[in-house]
């Protein structure tokens, strides 16, 4: 039998699953393996389609659990047999218990910051393009030289973007990080996305976190903030073998 796995915890009970419909429409149930319980549902088929209803069904189940406790969520599309699940839990038990302790009583809050990378690059390269850069360009003639100059500009542009993105990431963490006790911050994961940050925040400190975030928004009207949460701790549920 194939099972779809949603999340696990050492605090899960049946009442925390409610009447929520899971992926494929089947309601979730608990499988208990010693002190760890796993929320699963029966699944027909060999793979899970990345479709709106499936994505939301996965998240609906995990979010319902999150109302009561903080579980470790499985990645979307995790299909497993009972034997496979048992093997995983046996092999990972110590690390799972440690991770559960780490996230207990907390939620993940997400912040993404977007900028106009082209404007930043133009601003950054202004000096380069106006003074000594132009002199060098006039000295360098021919297609080969032009190619090298263009390449240098691209490299400088990328470096400047990274540098500025790092400054913004540090500033963000300095501003809101105090309300969080763990974080996972990616700097410039794509050219438009300056920062993709996940903060682990204790439930009782959510108000404080939101206030700090609002202050950050006000302080930097030049940046676009996409914030969301509370989430199950997806960014803090990575168990390395």
């Amino acid at each position, binding site marked *: 039998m194939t099972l779809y*796995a949603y*999340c*696990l915890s050492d605090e899960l009970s049946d009442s925390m699953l409610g009447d929520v419909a899971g992926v494929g429409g089947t309601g979730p149930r608990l499988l208990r393996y010693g002190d760890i319980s796993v929320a699963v549902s029966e699944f027909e088929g*060999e*793979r*899970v*389609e*990345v*479709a*709106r209803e499936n*994505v*939301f069904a*996965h*998240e609906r189940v995990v979010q319902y659990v999150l109302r009561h406790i903080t579980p*470790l*969520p*499985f*990645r*979307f*599309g*995790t*299909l*497993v047999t009972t034997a*496979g*699940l048992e093997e*995983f839990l046996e092999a990972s038990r110590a690390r799972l218990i440690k991770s559960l302790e780490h996230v207990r009583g907390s939620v*993940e809050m*997400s912040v*993404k910051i*977007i900028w106009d990378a082209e404007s930043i690059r133009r601003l950054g390269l202004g000096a380069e393009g106006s003074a000594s850069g132009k002199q060098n360009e006039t000295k360098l003639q021919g297609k080969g030289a032009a190619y090298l100059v263009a390449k240098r500009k691209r490299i400088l542009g990328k470096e400047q973007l990274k540098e500025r993105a790092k400054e913004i990431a540090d500033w963000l963490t300095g501003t809101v990080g105090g309300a969080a006790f763990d974080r996972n911050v990616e700097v410039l*994961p*794509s050219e*438009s*996305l300056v920062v*993709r940050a996940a903060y682990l925040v204790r439930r009782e400190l959510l108000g404080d976190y939101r206030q700090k975030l609002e202050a950050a*928004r006000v302080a930097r009207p030049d940046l*676009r*903030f*996409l914030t*969301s949460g509370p*989430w199950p701790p*997806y*960014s803090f*549920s*990575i*168990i390395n*073998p």
Partner: protein
Amino acid sequence: MRTVEELGFQEDELSLLETLDHVLDRGLVIAGEITIAVADIDLIFVGLNVLITSVETAREVLDERKKQVLSDEF
């Protein structure tokens, strides 16, 4: 503070994107047990390029699967 409409997309789209961004490439993994299929995903991401990482993740998985199927067939 900008509204989601000012950022260029609808609220339910943003909600789906944020959810995808979390559930597709993070969370507990049981080795070899992620079995997803990507269909019509472009429809969801029309007009958006800021949260492209999730799509890339989905496509990587799909491409890997295609390669696997092809190598199995030959």
